[in-house]
Each structure stands twice: as structure tokens, then as C-alpha cells.
């Protein structure tokens, strides 16, 4: 049954991908990309990677689509016919695909308990986590503590992307992240449409609440700062779409965004530095408390909070940068 579902999803994935490549209508391409992400998320779920699925759904199908649309507002909606031949890319892609397929010939079967991935590091994580960190969701333990340095890096990947977008699209005035939309234009969007406004206002609190749930539930089930950040950002973006830029910025002002971006990134890094000051290695949370397990848990909560803050802040900043450009 799972295999059948996987095959179905993968087939749809290929069809969507081909459609994305073939269409010249960029709006359609953006919508298809959203569908692609959703299928991808379903795929991840089939593979039991619930955390990844959640992220993919929130970021890939949600935020990215909005950002793509924002970008489209700045450019043309149709792809220009390019004189370049498409044969070379096609050949390269086919060769790559064939190579990857070739690589799978010697691979262990899906779910084979004797596969190397299940023999080496993973069992250690599973058996030692209850003793060392004592939280049910091992994935969070891995991301937050064992490979916390990677996660820090990923936060900074997001941060860098935000800096880059603000650098390119930002206001160009010192201390101001993005140009403010003129007030008369902020009446745009769906402000005068009763139905979306009512429904939106009904939903937004729940979206944010769900975001917070994902943030703090990460220790027990799928979730964590990245997903939570994306979900909360999506909620605020929905608000901006319904009520206009100005109201959204009044609700969550620029200075707050700044605090979130800087504060989030710094919080994570500083937790690491504090660990160093208290005599441990960088990001060694055990020293944060007299009890090393409690220290680990405290550390993970703190850094997840940092991740959530930074991701929300950066995603919203990017959205506003695009939106402000589009209306201005």
C-alpha cells in the first residue's frame, strides 16, 4: 500500500516537474511549484520524515509561493522565448538521472534494517538520547544538540538570504529595512472584500497558535523553530494580504522584525558562547545547568526559540521587501 502511494506521488511529482519546465506562464509555474512542494511534503511523510514534511509544506508550498508571486509583481508574468537550445540541458538532466538510477543498483533496500545508516550512528542516537538528553523526539535532539552546529549554520543560511534580499531590494536608507508603501496604496489587496477578511481574521489566530504549538511541541513530536517560524510568518503574511502592508507593519513593526532577526541569530550564537564561558565546548549545553540532562533541555529550548525568532523575522523582512517594491 505504501509502495503504491509512493509510486503514485512520485509519478505526480514527475508530471508536475515536466509541466513546470514546459509552461511559459510564470504564474502557472509558481502555482505548479506550490503543488510540487505539497507532493514533496507528502512524499517525505510517506518516508516517515514528518519534521521535513512539515517544513516543506510550510516553506515550499506556503512562503515560497508568496515570495515568487512578489517577485513576479516586479517582473514580467511570461517567460521570454530564449534562443538557447534546450537540448544540452535535457541531455545533461537525462545523464544525471541515469547516473543516479545507476547508483541505486547496489544500494540497500528501502527500510532494510541492516543498511549502514541503521547500523552506525543512528542506533547510538536512539539508545543514548533518553540517557543524555531525555526528550522523546530524537530528531530534535539530533538537530538541536548533536548536530546543533549544523542547525546554527542553517539559521545563518536563512539570515544570509535575508541580508542579501534586503541589500538588493531594501530601502537604501540607513537603519530602514525596506521602503514603506505609500498609504493610499495600502488600501489594495482584499481589504474591501468581506468574505476573505472575515474568514482570514478567523483563521489567523489559529495559524499563529499552531505555529507556537509547533515551536514548543518540537521536543515531543515533529516540529521546531524552522517550521514554527515559517508558519507564524505565513500567518502574518496572510494578514498583510488581507489588510494591506501598512496594517501588517503596524501589527509587527519594522523594529520588532529587526529585534527578531538579530535577536534570533544572536540568541543561538550566544547560547553557544555562554557554554564556552561556562567551561564547555561551543554549544555544549550540558554545562548550562548542574544537571547535564536539564542543561541539554534548556539549551535546546533556547536555541529553538532563537531559530523560530530568526526565521520568522527573516521571512517577514523578505516578504515586506518584495511587497514594498511591488507597490512602490
Amino acid at each position, binding site marked *: 500500500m505504501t509502495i503504491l502511494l509512493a509510486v503514485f506521488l512520485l509519478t505526480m511529482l514527475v508530471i508536475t516537474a515536466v509541466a513546470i519546465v514546459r509552461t511559459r506562464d510564470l504564474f502557472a509555474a509558481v502555482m505548479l511549484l506550490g503543488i510540487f512542494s505539497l507532493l514533496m511534503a507528502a512524499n517525505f511523510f510517506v518516508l516517515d520524515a514528518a519534521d521535513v514534511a512539515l517544513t516543506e509544506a510550510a516553506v515550499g508550498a506556503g512562503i515560497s509561493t508568496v515570495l515568487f508571486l512578489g517577485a513576479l509583481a516586479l517582473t514580467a508574468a511570461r517567460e521570454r522565448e530564449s534562443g538557447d537550445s534546450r537540448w544540452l540541458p535535457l541531455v545533461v538532466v537525462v545523464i544525471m538521472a541515469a547516473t543516479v538510477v545507476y547508483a541505486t543498483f547496489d544500494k540497500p533496500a528501502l527500510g532494510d534494517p541492516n543498511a549502514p545508516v541503521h547500523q552506525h550512528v543512528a542506533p547510538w542516537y536512539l539508545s543514548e538520547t533518553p540517557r543524555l538528553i531525555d526528550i522523546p523526539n530524537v530528531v530534535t535532539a539530533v538537530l538541536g544538540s548533536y548536530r546543533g552546529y549544523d542547525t546554527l549554520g542553517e539559521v545563518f543560511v536563512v539570515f544570509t538570504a535575508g541580508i542579501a534580499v534586503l541589500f538588493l531590494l531594501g530601502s537604501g536608507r540607513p537603519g530602514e529595512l525596506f521602503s514603506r508603501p505609500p498609504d493610499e496604496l495600502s488600501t489594495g489587496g*482584499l481589504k474591501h*472584500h468581506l*468574505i*476573505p477578511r472575515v474568514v482570514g481574521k478567523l*483563521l489567523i489566530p489559529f495559524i499563529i497558535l499552531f505555529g507556537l504549538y509547533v515551536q514548543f511541541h518540537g521536543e515531543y513530536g515533529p516540529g521546531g523553530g524552522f517550521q514554527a517560524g515559517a508558519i507564524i510568518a505565513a500567518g502574518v503574511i496572510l494578514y498583510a494580504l488581507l489588510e494591506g502592508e501598512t496594517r501588517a507593519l503596524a501589527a509587527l513593526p519594522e523594529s520588532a522584525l529587526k529585534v527578531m532577526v538579530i535577536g534570533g541569530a544572536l540568541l543561538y550564537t550566544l547560547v553557544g558562547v555562554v557554554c564556552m564561558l561556562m567551561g564547555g565546548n561551543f554549544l555544549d549545553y550540558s554545562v548550562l545547568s548542574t544537571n547535564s540532562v536539564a542543561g541539554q533541555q534548556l539549551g535546546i529550548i533556547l536555541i529553538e526559540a532563537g531559530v523560530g525568532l530568526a526565521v520568522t523575522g527573516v521571512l517577514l523582512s523578505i516578504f515586506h521587501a518584495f511587497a514594498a517594491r511591488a507597490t512602490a
Partner: protein
Amino acid sequence: MSLFLDLGSWVLFGIGSLLLFIGALGVLRLPTLFTRMHAASLTESLGTIAVLTGIMLQAGLTLATMKLLAILLFLLLTSPTSSYALANAALLARNRDQTREQADRK
């Protein structure tokens, strides 16, 4: 009892699937955007309700049913709204196109 529940749920699955299938067929066969949207949005709401209720019957009175109920509520709110937004966008776009055409003719 469980037999009845099972039977009921399968009937609901059947109705839901049929509605969704008709909706899909409508999207494919009907001539204009608005008629297609009409087909999709109407059948989708009822179809989803039927399928989700079917699943609830399968699950019984558990946490899963509560979650399904939440999903159902969410869908009932969002899917008509999104249909509305889409239709509105299409209307705006058509108006814009028409004004542009008129401007072109002048």
C-alpha cells in the same frame, strides 16, 4: 454495529469520490473559467465533507476524529473563500483586459 458503521462509511466514500470525480470532469469539460470554478468549488465542499465523515466513522470516537473535525472545519472555511478570491481575481483581470482592449481600439 460496526458493520453498519463500516457500511455507512463506505457509502460516504463512494458519494464523496463520485462528487469529486464529477467536479474534476467539470473542470476538464466545461467551457469557461467561471463555469469550471463553479463545478470545482461546489462539488469539492460536499465531496470533502462526505469523505472526511466516512473516515471519522472508520476512526470512531478518538483523538483522530477530533483532528479530522478540525481539518473539516478548516476546509469548510478556506475552500469557499479561496474560490471567492480566485473568482474575484479573475473578474478583476478580465475587467483590466477589457479596459485595455477598449483603450487599444480607441
